[in-house]
């Protein structure tokens, strides 16, 4: 930094980066300012600030209980599905990965390989048969999986299993066996070893698994569309916004308010958990 020429450069880079930063966040800004207008004001100038910010609350009040959107209940359904799916994914994938790592047999290798190989299967190839299979299950076993929370959560546990199990598997391989051996000598049962000793040790990788699956499940559109269907009392937020936008074509003041309501929870969560979210997603990609 002694050379004045070098000192000049970061400033230029800072200006360029700041400009790109503003450009990148512009779409979100545009949503916010236009959610605070009525449709005339939007057509007049979509880039001006709202004359009366209270309009944003009037717009929210208009759409909140709209039969297509039902924001309160959609938010509840999305949260329930996301939280329960995450809970089951971490427990189910964690315990399965642990037992597969600690059992050194051909069978355990084959089962692990099956989970990993399934990662290339795209959603498109299973989406139609999944619906007809769930219908068959309902008809013959009596468990309703279509249009229910149970079906949604089971689906997410299934679709999230491969990647989650793979990540837990890689992490558990690095945990020394001595810990568990000592616990066995102390008379700890096998399942106790996992839930009392191992699972708390998995926190860092559990955070990654939660972030990766959580963002995907919260934003997912196609699976809820197929499993929950249209006109269901249970609908997720993306499904609700799609229904709403379909019913109010070109009413941008209301559509953008719905979009804003759909974005806010994720953005708030990101502001608080930013570091974990970015770290988790990058760690997930490198696997």
């Amino acid at each position: 930094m002694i050379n004045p020429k070098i000192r000049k450069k970061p400033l230029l880079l800072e200006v360029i980066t700041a400009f790109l930063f503003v450009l990148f966040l512009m779409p979100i800004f545009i949503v916010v300012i236009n959610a605070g207008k009525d449709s005339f004001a939007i057509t007049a100038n979509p880039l001006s600030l709202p004359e009366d910010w209270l309009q944003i609350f009037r717009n929210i009040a208009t759409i909140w209980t709209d039969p297509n959107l039902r924001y309160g209940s959609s938010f509840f359904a999305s949260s329930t599905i996301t939280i329960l799916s995450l809970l089951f994914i971490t427990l189910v994938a964690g315990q399965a990965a642990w037992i597969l790592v600690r059992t050194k047999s051909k069978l355990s290798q084959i089962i692990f390989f099956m989970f990993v190989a399934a990662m290339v299967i795209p959603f498109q190839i299973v989406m139609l048969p999944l619906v007809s299979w769930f219908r068959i299950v309902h008809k013959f076993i009596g468990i309703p999986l279509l249009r229910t929370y149970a079906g949604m959560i089971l689906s997410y546990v299934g679709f999230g299993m491969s990647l989650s199990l793979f990540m837990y598997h890689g992490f558990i391989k690095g945990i020394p066996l001595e810990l568990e051996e000592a616990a066995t000598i102390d008379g700890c049962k096998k399942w106790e070893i996992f839930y009392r000793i191992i699972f708390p040790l998995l926190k860092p990788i559990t955070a990654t698994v939660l972030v990766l699956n959580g963002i995907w499940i919260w934003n997912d559109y196609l699976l809820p569309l197929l499993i929950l269907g249209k006109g269901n009392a249970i609908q997720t937020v993306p499904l609700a916004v799609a229904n709403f936008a379909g019913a109010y074509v070109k009413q941008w003041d209301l559509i953008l308010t719905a979009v804003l309501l759909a974005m806010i929870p994720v953005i708030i969560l990101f502001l608080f958990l930013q570091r974990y979210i970015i770290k988790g997603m990058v760690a997930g990609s490198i696997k």
Partner: protein
Amino acid sequence: MKKKQHDLVFWLFLAPAVIAFLMVILIPFIMGIFYSMTDWTSRPQPEGLQFVGLLNFIDSFKDISFIYSFLLTIVYTFVNMIVINIVAFGLALLVTSKIKFDNIFRAGFFLPNLIGGLILGYIWQFIFNMVIPNLPVISAIFPAIAESGNLMLATRDSAVMAIVIAGSWQYAGYIMMIYVAAIISVPEELFEAAKIDGASSFKNLIHIIVPMTAQAFTITMFLTLVQSFKQFDVNVSLTGGGPSTQFAGSFIRGTELLALDIYNTAFTANSLAESQARSVIFFIVLVLISLLQVRRNKKKEVEL
């Protein structure tokens, strides 16, 4: 000792994972391959399904709109990969160049990644249809751009570019973070040595950063390739497959990517079996891409 390996706990711990996997992936997957060779439709079929061999695959390849979607997806994937990676790598260089507020910048570039593709498509539809034509600059200098026939989403080529822009906005910040992780891990001594030798920033980039982050490029290329190839949500909410275009003499949806074509074949054309056949083709292409990736990674490891 060996007998105790697969004890009750082994099966109890595995059971939930295996059951969920069977119920959601394996059984539907096998059914899916079977359905692709039948005359499955959404109408009631009381006499049962007929086995038709590869007829659905042949029909798919005879369908101009499937061929078009296939080609379009290849073009889209190629363009999208390039745009995302250039933007992401450029941003990564900027936010690792020891500037102030770099953490805030990183978070800001990353943020769009948290917004779902469907929601994001509506945002960009608004920008292309309402914001851009109403910009004072546009109406003063290029009033023609604001005419409804000339809007970004009104013609095929520009509508595809619109999907690229929206898709890149969503994904570039994520890919940027992977590059950032790679650039940060380059040993500082290399830059110090280069500084003593009087290397320029550009030389640093070509001779240090690019070779030292080669591994990250393999990851990002694969991720963007698969992500672009599977694009669905943005496609649905931004263009819905339109506008229509002429291809090989017939009018078809101009921006319908493969995933949307598979969806529409099932739910608009009601040919479930043919949709299933197309998804099998989609699957085979993804398997080939993954095999190539695995092979390349293996080769790289050997070289190291």
